[in-house]
């Protein structure tokens, strides 16, 4: 059905927007590299494709006069989601142009900001492109060549957004969100791919901030110690039994 299709496409666009933002945040820092520029380029292109697809689908759905009121409200909600995504994407693209121009890669004395991030962003880009591994095949002057493409794409996106504003008469403030406050907590989001304790320990510098964090850290370490002792006891008992057997 139209709605589900729309929703999946919007989810995809949302995912790519989020990943693009992560990539742009890494621009200019020590995790910036040739690969990052290429990742940015490909993510951007994917975002644009998704945007165009979304837009055509949504405009055709909204232009249809024969839909019910509920349907229309739903489509307007999806439209607001789409336009907010596009706004974020546009701002990020413009910023990436600015930062990309300020931090060229192929200069003899390049000073990237030492932010402490040194890892690569391959996994983020792979998530955006929905592939397992990224293959890098760009030329070495991607940092300057890409900027021109980026400028064109920015103007395309701006144009698209202006057209959207003109053609589709949706009042964004009239849309009611389906999620209430705190909805993000209700989903089955695992807080980390490791246990709670490890994350709290890693946040060591904000030690004074969380009494809760501290408590958690203490609790987790006690747990770990207990488990360790239990295992050691079991091993000793088994060893004793084995020795007794033989």
């Amino acid at each position, binding site marked *: 059905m139209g709605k589900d299709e729309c929703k999946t496409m919007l989810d995809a666009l949302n995912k790519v927007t989020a990943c693009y933002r992560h990539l742009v945040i890494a*621009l200019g820092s020590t995790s910036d590299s040739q690969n990052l520029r290429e990742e940015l380029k490909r993510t951007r292109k994917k975002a644009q494709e998704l945007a165009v697809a979304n837009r055509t689908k949504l405009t055709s759905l909204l232009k249809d006069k024969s839909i019910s009121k509920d349907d229309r409200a739903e489509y307007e909600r999806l439209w607001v989601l789409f336009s*907010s995504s596009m706004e974020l994407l546009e*701002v990020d693209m413009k910023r990436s142009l600015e930062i990309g121009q300020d*931090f060229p890669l192929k200069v003899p004395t390049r000073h990237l*900001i030492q932010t402490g991030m040194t890892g690569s*962003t391959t996994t*983020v880009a792979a998530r955006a492109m929905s592939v397992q591994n990224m293959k890098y095949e760009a030329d070495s002057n991607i940092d300057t060549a890409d900027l021109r493409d980026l400028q064109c794409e920015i103007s395309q996106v701006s144009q698209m957004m202006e057209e959207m504003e003109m053609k589709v008469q949706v009042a964004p403030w009239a849309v009611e969100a389906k999620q209430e406050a705190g909805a993000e907590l209700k989903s089955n989001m695992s*807080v980390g791919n490791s246990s709670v304790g*490890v994350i709290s320990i890693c946040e060591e510098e904000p030690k*004074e901030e969380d009494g809760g964090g501290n408590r958690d850290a203490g609790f987790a370490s006690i747990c770990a110690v207990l488990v360790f002792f239990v295992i050691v006891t079991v091993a000793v008992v088994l060893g004793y039994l084995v020795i007794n057997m033989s």
Partner: protein
Amino acid sequence: MTIRNTLRDHGQRYRPRMACLKKVEKLLLEMQDPKTGVKSQPQRLVITTIPHAITGEDIIAWLADRFQVDTQEARNFVSMLVALGYIYPLQDHRRLVIKPDASLYRFQTPYFWPTQQWPVEDTDYAIYLAKRNIRKRGILELHEQEHYNRLHKWMNHKWDFVVMQAKEQYRAAKERKKPDRVVFECQERAYWVVHRPPPGTVSAMDYGLDRLTDPNADEVTGESLCDLLVKYCSTYKSHDPFLSNCLPSNPWLTDDATYWSLNMPSVEIPTKMRVERWTFSFAELLSDPRGRDDFRLFLKKEFSGENLAFWEGCEDLKWGEAATMREKAEHIYKTFLARGAPRWINIDGKTMEVTVKGLKHPHRYVLDPAQTHIYMLMKKDSYGRYQKSPVFKDTVKKAICPEEHRYSDAQLQQNAKKRRPSLSPIILRQMEQEQRAKMAANVDITQVMSKLSKQGKEAHVFSSGRDQKQS
């Protein structure tokens, strides 16, 4: 539509330029140099080690060395860097101060640098709070909770987007390695401490009032504001009594009132400077009473004096008393606009229609469209011809250029003793009114006759209820 960033912001909320930002960015790049920049050391956490941490004392020392200033000055400077958000503290992240000891700081990534062009959006803040909510499992700080509730209320239509985007950004962040993830969280948190400071702290990003014009926008094509200003200054420079000598002498300086008597509103022979001013623009010519007289003389010769008379009548209506407004409007209509009027003015059909309709319920500005039309007509047509006419050339020839007074000190003292007040404004106004009455009585008959003959040839159609009152 939704309010977006300043580039499409029609609400004219423009942030003033913070010139220091670009300069700080240059300095920051210098600090990154591996040889001559600030020394960095790794920060050891329990499991991970994160590089590129700098100590407070190192930064201050580097800056003092770079600019050759003393430590206190360097410390003030670095505290500004921290307050703006270019460097953030790793311990005690809520207080953006620089501690001149071994406490650790780190550089902020360029995306999170403060910029003049990109305002800090509430949408981003909402997404950040939602992400923090996820991470802290619902336990936000008090001010963050308040912000969250407020944003949820007024940004409700976007809330689905906020939640979706927060979840996606959270998942995307998890894709990175552990040290990078920690760094990213610290960066984002520092960014929001700068731009949404906790209560009781002062933000360095307070810039006062917004501007009315966008400092980033390209100037209007053609003449920019600067060009116009330069042109104005160069034109009027020699006419400004502050910037150049006024002839014969500045009455305020020499107590000699010749300058004023030579430049009276209805003087016979104007000064050269005055006549020169009439050539600068049509508005100058009209605003000077002597210039207007000259122009009136010229128009009389051309038989198009009714334009100026109409314009003056409109001005009178606009600035006159409310009690006499209705009669004035009627008089103007009868004299200039009605069919068969003695001094009929030539305006286009649409304007005439609008004006006549408005005259049914006259108010101060009812004749504005017609007045503008006539003004532009005079400006484009008559003004040019006036400047080439014998009337004007005559005036220019006759204009006087008084000699500059050279008073000795003794004479200046004499002048000071002889100071007298000038004519009372009441008397001046009476003189003005007498003159106006004289002019109204002296409407040129030849003009009227020629107009009447023209009317027969033209066909003008407009409806007016007032026509019934006309003969």
